[in-house]
């Protein structure tokens, strides 16, 4: 209704800019739709029960990615178990204990720096520190430890956000009743920020699932089932996770059907992780 009274040049501006806005947004959404559609179209036919629950067998000529799934779970569990306490601890220190402004700035700056370092650098550093200096070799353990450093910023930041939302009166109430600081954190602060910690955890899992460069150079390339029967074998196991397996099948074995099936599974995981993080985040806001 306003547009009609405008001068021609302003009306033109209005129409042109509006078109640009709609076209750009449409491009963004179409990109996503096309990528997802194409991957599902190429990938879904190859997915069946056998594909998910067996390993590749040249003798029988069957294809399966169970090893990649197991390796992915291994890396997720191992890295989160270590990164979660460290990250939550760091966030607690930053919000509950730290008085020294400089130290807080230093820690926050370090966290940002870690978040900005590209994964290929982590791959290099992981190979130098964990595989070579600590003599862990190219193993799932070395990969998981490298991922601990990578996921730390995500966990620290989300936990810190949720600790900040715990009302100050809760803390004062607890301290006023005579509890010490650690007791206050354990019984009052942590329980009320559990949603934020869960969100951080989910986001960190998302990063681990999507990571490929680090694991390619620190965790190994085998797409065969590893021997997890003893602790020693468990420590020495090395293998490809889903993303690395995708790369190997696509780039080195030119087996695109399998690559697209793995891509489909990764997409499903991404959607699930996004929904879970969104759900936990919404609970956090409430």
């Amino acid at each position: 209704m306003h547009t009609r009274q405008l001068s021609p040049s302003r009306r033109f501006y209005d129409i042109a800019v509006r078109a640009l806005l709609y076209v750009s947004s449409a491009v963004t959404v179409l990109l996503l739709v096309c990528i997802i559609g194409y991957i599902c179209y190429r990938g879904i036919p190859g997915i069946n029960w056998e594909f998910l629950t067996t390993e590749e067998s040249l003798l029988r000529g069957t294809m399966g990615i169970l090893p990649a799934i197991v390796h992915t779970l291994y890396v997720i569990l191992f890295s989160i178990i270590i990164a979660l306490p460290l990250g939550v601890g760091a966030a607690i220190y930053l919000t509950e204990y730290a008085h020294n402004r400089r130290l807080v700035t230093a820690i926050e700056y370090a966290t940002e720096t870690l978040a900005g370092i590209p994964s290929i650098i982590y791959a290099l550093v992981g190979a130098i520190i964990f595989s070579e200096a600590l003599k862990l070799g190219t193993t799932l353990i070395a990969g998981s430890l490298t991922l601990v450093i990578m996921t730390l910023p995500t966990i620290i930041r989300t936990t810190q956000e949720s600790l900040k939302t715990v009302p100050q009166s809760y803390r004062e109430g607890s301290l006023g009743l005579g509890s010490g600081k650690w007791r206050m954190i354990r019984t009052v602060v942590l329980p009320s920020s559990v949603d934020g910690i869960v969100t951080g955890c989910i986001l960190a899992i998302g990063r681990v699932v999507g990571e490929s460069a680090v694991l390619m150079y620190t965790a190994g390339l085998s797409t065969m089932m590893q021997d997890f029967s003893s602790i020693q074998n468990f420590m020495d196991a090395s293998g490809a996770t889903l993303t690395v397996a995708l790369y190997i099948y696509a780039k080195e074995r030119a087996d695109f059907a399998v690559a697209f099936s793995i891509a489909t599974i990764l997409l499903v995981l991404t959607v699930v992780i996004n929904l879970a993080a969104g759900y936990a985040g919404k609970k956090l806001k409430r």
Partner: protein
Amino acid sequence: MQMKDAMNLTAAGAGGRTAGKAQVVGKDTGRKNGRKAAEHIMQVVFLICGLIAVGFVLLISVYLIISGIPAIREVGLVNFLFGDTWDSYNKTDPQFGILPMILTSVYGTAGAIVIGVPIGFFTAVFLSKVAPPKLAAVVRPAVSLLAGIPSVVYGLVGMIVLVPWIRTTFNLPAGDSLFAAIIVLAVMILPSIISVSETALQAVPQEYEEASLALGATELETYFRVSVPAAKSGIAAAVVLGIGRAIGEAMAILMVAGNVANMPSLFSSVRFLTTGIAIEMNYASPGSLQRNALYSIGLVLFLFIMLINVLLNVVLKREKED
């Protein structure tokens, strides 16, 4: 900050009082001392957790510098940075010049920014100002899904769809090229540009827009002449973040760029700093000059990233001052 100080004072006071009482009631002393010890131990534990992030950054910097220096010293800094040939497998006369990779990374990132920033910026304005709530509720999850897709998946789609398309459309012998990498990178930086600029645009005080509307500007004139200038440092931060993402991406472009260390041109096979490391990592034996040269590339890339981080902090600081 004041609140926190006040709290600490209360905490100290409470601690002092319990200590005093403990002296009177001798029986409870042991338990209370134990509790106090636990408090101290936990404080130290949390301090260590906090310092670990700093420790990791130092560890990474120190290891990269220590591992990166030897090859640079052996090849010579000028030859390494400005040499235009990379021929690491040559047994008799290996060449370690990374200028082609530096230029490819710079051009590739610039290309991705040129394509990705306008699309991302307009989408962000659409999402934060123009879109009806229901439509925004569909587009926003789409953007975050785009952010979550693993980079190898982008690489796979680029390799199977984009690369053959480039080959046939531009009538080339092979489609693996800088152009393919630029497009894949542009798609990959889109989500971070959109979400950061959207947050900045949403933080613009509504009064600004209301004032502009009341003076007779149309909605769109208001958004672009009032809201966008008000959010300009946030949008600048989004661009810098996009640059960081693009320059650091490895796996996706490893699959579409061809990976030959040519001087960059739009339709030739190229090698980025990141892919230069990635393509030879598994073949270079530890201790060899080739491997050390890869660490040196890592060091150069790390310096680029640190530079971008500093830039980002400057931009964000300016935003806070605004």
